[in-house]
C-alpha cells in the first residue's frame, strides 16, 4: 500500500493541478506533507526493514489457519521431540508431539491480537482523557492525579491483581496491558494538546467563537493523530513482550491454547536436551518486537523530524 501511494506522489503533476482548482488550501498542504511523509518513510532504511518484517509476521499470523494443515493443540503421542528438519515437522515437535511451527504461527496470532487490543484499549481511553486534560485546566487536576496513581502500578502488579480477582486469561492480559499503557497515552496526547492550544489556528477558532468541543474534536484531535500513531508503535512491542511474560508466568493465555509465552514456559523443563523448543518461540517474539521497534523508529523520524537527530 505504501509503495503505491508513493508512486502516485512521484507521478505527473496533472493530478495536483486539478486539486489546486478544487480543494481548499489546507487540503493541499495536508496532501503535500502527506506525500512527503510517505517518501521520507520509504527512504528510511531501518524503518522499511521493520515494515517488511512486520508484513511477513502479520501475513504469517493472519494466514495461520491456511498455513497450518492441522490443529496446533492436537497431541500426537507417537511423535514427541522430533528434531527440527524432520520430514513433516519443519521446526520439530514438542513433548506432546505438537508441531512447533504451527503452534508458533498461532502463538504469533495471539501475541498480535493481545498487542492490538491493548493498544486499542489504551488509545480509546487515553486519547479523550489526554485531550480533556490538555484543554481544560479543571479536568487536568483530576486526570493528572489519577494518572499518577495508575503509573504507580507496574503492569505486572495490575495483572497480578486482576488474576487474583478474575483468574488468569487472555482477556486479563489485554486488560492489564491496556490499562498499564493508558497513562502514557494520556501524557502524550495531553502534551500535544497543550502545544496545539497556543497555535494560531486554534486561537483563530477561539476568536471565531467555535465551541470548545468543536475546537478539540475538529482542530486539535486531527493534529494529535501522528503523535498517537507514534505512541501506539511504542506501546505495541511492549504489549507483545508483556503478553509473552504474562503467559510465561501463567497469568495470561492458558494452555493448551498456543501462545509464544506458554510455549517458552512449556519448553523450560526440556531445554537442556531439546533447546530448539525454547529457541524458536523466543526468537519469534524478538522478531515481532524488533519489527515494531524499527518501524516505529522510522515513523517517529518521519512524523516528527525534530526528533531525527536526537532519537
Amino acid at each position: 500500500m505504501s509503495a503505491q501511494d508513493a508512486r502516485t506522489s512521484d507521478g505527473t503533476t496533472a493530478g495536483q493541478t486539478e486539486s489546486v482548482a478544487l480543494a481548499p488550501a489546507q487540503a493541499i498542504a495536508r496532501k503535500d506533507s502527506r506525500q512527503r511523509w510517505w517518501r521520507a518513510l520509504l527512504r528510511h532504511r531501518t524503518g522499511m526493514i521493520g515494515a517488511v518484517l512486520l508484513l511477513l509476521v502479520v501475513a504469517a499470523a493472519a494466514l495461520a489457519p491456511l498455513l497450518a494443515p492441522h490443529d496446533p493443540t492436537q497431541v500426537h503421542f507417537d511423535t514427541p521431540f522430533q528434531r527440527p528438519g524432520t520430514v513433516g515437522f519443519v521446526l520439530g515437535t514438542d513433548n506432546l508431539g505438537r508441531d512447533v511451527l504451527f503452534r508458533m504461527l498461532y502463538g504469533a496470532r495471539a501475541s498480535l491480537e493481545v498487542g492490538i487490543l491493548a493498544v486499542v484499549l489504551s488509545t480509546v481511553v487515553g486519547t479523550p482523557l489526554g485531550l480533556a486534560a490538555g484543554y481544560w485546566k479543571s479536568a487536568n487536576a483530576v486526570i493528572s492525579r489519577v494518572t499518577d496513581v495508575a503509573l504507580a502500578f507496574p503492569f505486572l502488579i495490575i495483572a497480578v491483581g486482576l488474576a487474583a480477582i478474575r483468574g488468569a486469561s487472555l482477556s486479563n492480559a489485554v486488560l492489564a496491558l491496556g490499562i498499564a499503557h493508558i497513562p502514557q497515552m494520556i501524557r502524550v496526547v495531553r502534551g500535544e494538546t497543550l502545544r496545539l492550544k497556543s497555535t494560531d489556528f486554534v486561537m483563530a477558532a477561539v476568536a471565531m467563537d467555535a465551541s470548545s468541543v468543536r475546537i478539540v474534536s475538529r482542530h486539535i484531535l486531527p493534529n494529535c493523530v501522528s503523535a498517537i500513531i507514534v505512541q501506539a508503535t511504542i506501546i505495541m512491542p511492549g504489549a507483545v513482550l508483556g503478553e509473552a511474560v504474562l503467559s510465561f508466568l501463567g497469568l495470561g493465555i492458558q494452555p493448551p491454547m498456543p501462545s509464544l509465552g506458554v510455549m517458552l514456559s512449556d519448553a523450560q523443563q526440556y531445554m537442556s536436551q531439546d533447546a530448539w523448543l525454547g529457541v524458536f518461540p523466543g526468537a519469534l517474539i524478538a522478531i515481532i518486537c524488533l519489527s515494531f521497534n524499527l518501524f516505529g523508529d522510522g515513523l517517529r523520524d518521519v512524523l516528527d523530524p525534530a526528533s531525527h537527530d536526537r532519537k
Partner: protein
Amino acid sequence: MARYLLTRVGQSIVTIFLSSMVVFAGMRLLPGDPAVSLAGEEATPARIAAIRAEYGLDRPVWVQYATFLRNSLHGDFGRSLRTGTPVSELIRSTLPVTLWLAAYALLISVVVGLILGVVAERFRGRWPEWGANLVAMVGLSVPSFWLGLLAILFLSVDHHVFPASGYVPMMQDPARSLYHLTLPALVLALALAAVVMRQTRASMIATMQSDYVRTARAKGLRRGRVLVRYGLRNSLIVVVTIVGLQLGGLISGAVVTESIFGLPGFGKLTLNSVFSRDYPVVQAVVLLITVGYVLINLAVDALYSVINPRIRVAGAV
C-alpha cells in the same frame, strides 16, 4: 526548591493514599464473600466467622478501611492463609533478595548504558555507533526471560560459568552472593541498559550541538574533556529520570527473572501468593510495591532538582 519538594511530598502522600484505596477496593472486588475467599476453599463456617471477625468484615466499610490503613502503617498485614506465617515476616525474608538483584541490575544497566551512549555519540555515523544502536535495539526487542533461559542453557548447563539457580544471602558471603546474582542481574539489566543508552545518546547529541559546548571548544578545551564535563553531566540528569520512570519495568522484570533463576525473592512470593490465592499476601505485596515505587520516584525528583537547577525555578512558579 523547598516549596517544590513540599508539593511533591504532598502529591506522593495523596498518591499513596489513593493507591491504598485501590488495593483495599480490589480485595472487596473478589467474587463472593471476601471472608469466604480469604478463608480458602475448604474452610469451616467457624473459620469463616473467625476471619470475618479478624478482618472486621462485619463493620462499616470506612471503619474497615481505617483499620486496614492503621495495621498497614504498623507493618501488620495479617497472616498468610497458606502457611500461617505473618505476612510481614515473609516480606522481610524475600525483599532483600529482590533489592540486591534490582540494585545490581540497575548498576550494570546504568554503567553499560552510559558507556554505549557516549560511544555512540563520540563515533557518530561510524561502526561503533551502529554497534551500540544494534545492542540497544536488541535489548529493547529480545524478551529478557528468553535470554535468561538461553543464558542458563549455555553458560550454566553447558559451560558451568555461572550457577543456574540458588541464592546466597549477601550478609553471609558477599562474593558468592554476587556470583549467584550476576547472571540474573545481567538478564534483568538488558532492557534498562538499552533505554539508558538511547536516552544518553540523544541527550549527548543535543548537548554537544549546543552553544555553550561550541564556546568551550572555541576556548580550546579538548573534545574528550567537553564530552565528560558537559555531555556526561547533562546525561546524568536524563539517566536519573529514566531510572525513576523505568522502575516499574524493573520490578516486573524482577518477578520474571526470579521465576527463571529460582531466586527466593519478592517476585516469587508475589506469584506464589496469586496462584495459591493467598489474598493477605497479595494485598500486602501490591501495596508495598506501590508505596515503594511512589517513594523512589519522590527521591528521584528530589535528586533531580539537586542536579538540575532549572527544575527548581520551574517548580517555584
